[in-house]
């Protein structure tokens, strides 16, 4: 009926409703956990034009680019908040661009997202925000949820703020609570949308340390969207390990030896560069040089 009305109105048809999705096939361990294939999206103007990339399990991809280059759109597409006009997006074997809201639910359970400003629910306390997904799942008792929430708040260093409201928190604290909320269900994939933008250098370091911890200690695959080059390189060159219950960082100074982090630069919706931090730093491309300067 809606399509008929849209046809009468001369508007482009909406994407066809997704056919019943077959259960996602088991993914080989070396297959990418996220795969973009020739993805196009336009609103009034082109936003993404033929973007393709893979994210291997346990690795980090840093997406760089100026404002309006389509960085955040990539995250929204992975989460199924937007649908591409063309191309395919596979998340752990599921084609998210063909799934409806119900079908997307199990895919979204595998993903944790840290929004740019935190996107905490104003009407809920910090504890309720962090435990929201666990309550919605309905599989744990209240005591279990509280235990897990307190543990996660301890991980981000905000355990005493359990009963506070989001309006009482600083910008950095909001970001860390958002971090805890995204991590509480132990996702396989973490997406970060400008997690350090607008924060002071000390809080930035706290956030980047958290990102590294999650990557190295839990083996979580992640995509980091940012235009903060300093933080992006810090994440690439810092590794975290645990000794005697303590988290210890190891910083690699020589970028040419780094593994596990790939940089991708977008320009006007197209991939301008893809490679290692060392390749980015030594690139001859005029735009990249200007961006890095």
């Amino acid at each position, binding site marked *: 009926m809606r399509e008929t009305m849209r046809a009468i109105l*001369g508007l482009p048809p909406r994407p066809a409703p997704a056919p019943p999705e077959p259960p996602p096939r088991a993914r080989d361990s070396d297959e990418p956990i996220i795969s973009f294939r020739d993805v196009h999206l336009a609103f009034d103007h082109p936003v993404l034009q033929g973007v393709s990339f893979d994210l291997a399990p346990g690795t980090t991809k840093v997406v760089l680019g100026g404002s309006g280059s389509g960085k955040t759109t990539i995250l929204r597409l992975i989460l199924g908040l937007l649908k591409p006009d063309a191309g395919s997006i596979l998340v752990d074997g599921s084609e998210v661009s063909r799934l409806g809201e119900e079908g997307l639910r199990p895919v979204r359970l595998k993903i944790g997202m840290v929004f740019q*400003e935190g996107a905490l629910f104003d009407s809920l306390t910090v504890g309720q925000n962090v435990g*929201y997904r666990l309550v919605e799942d309905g599989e744990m008792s209240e005591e279990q949820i509280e235990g897990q929430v307190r543990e996660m708040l301890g991980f981000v260093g905000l355990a005493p703020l359990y009963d506070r409201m989001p309006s009482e928190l600083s910008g950095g604290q909001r970001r860390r609570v958002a971090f805890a909320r995204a991590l509480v269900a132990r996702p396989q994939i973490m997406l970060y949308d400008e997690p350090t933008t607008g924060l002071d250098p000390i809080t930035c370091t706290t956030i980047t340390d958290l990102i590294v911890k999650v990557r190295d200690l839990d083996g979580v695959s992640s995509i980091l969207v940012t235009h903060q080059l300093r933080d992006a390189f810090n994440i690439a060159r810092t590794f975290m390990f645990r000794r005697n219950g303590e988290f210890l960082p190891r910083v690699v100074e020589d970028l040419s030896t780094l593994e596990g982090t790939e940089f991708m630069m977008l320009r006007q919706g197209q991939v301008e560069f893809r490679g290692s931090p060392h390749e980015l730093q030594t690139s001859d491309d005029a735009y990249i040089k200007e961006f890095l300067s």
Partner: protein
Amino acid sequence: MATRTQLLFLSLGRRLSQHLKESVLAVQDYILLTAQGLNALVTPPRYHQELLAQMDSLGVQSLSIVVLTGMFTGMVLALQSAASLDAFGARPYVGRLVCISMVRELGPVLTALMVTGRVGSGMAAELGSMVVTQQIDALRVLGSDPVRKLVAPRLAAALIMVPLLTIVSDTVGIFGGSLISIFNLKLSWEFYWRSVMNAMVMNDLVMGLLKPLVFGLILSSVGCYMGLNTSGGTQGVGLSTTRSVVVASVTILSSDFFITKLLLILFPVA
């Protein structure tokens, strides 16, 4: 070769056509949202805590303005009608007139307009803020359906509380009319209330309770639709709030005419 006038008309035609298409699409989206919201009321999962919070916000917290509006409307109605009825020596009919006016028209309409101003705008502002701060996206990512979580409880609260508030408004309005009749128009208490009871028939009650149901649905669904369609940051939130009050108020007033017309056909006044 087209003249400048022809080109101007062509351009105007295109813009008009585009505007018309967008309006029709907006109505379509509004109807879909309302239908999905109503469907979510009768299918699980339901959010009972959210419903109770909305009933408190929409109903209990609106009680004072509804009581004040109803009281003064009933009082002014008694004063005005007495002045007109005196010309025909029909002052004793004041109670009848106040009762019928309040129950059939003024109670439902004024209550709905007051709740629209207080709560409908609040719904649009709250949901609009959630949109611009990405809280709606966060809800979806965390596995909740915003229609079930946010829209359905607001629709249910309005469907329950607006009729109850209207009953309060009617009662207080008729009581306000009685105060003026006794202390200002020198009618007796018994005479006024006998006149009220004689005036009230089943048709009045049907009309008086059906209208608030429809008005409740309009004010809540318009508030939710405007809020969820917010764009453009905090300025957009302000715009959505204003639009929700204007659209809901005009829709309530215009639908009142059609509901009255329909009910008068279905239940003719004896």
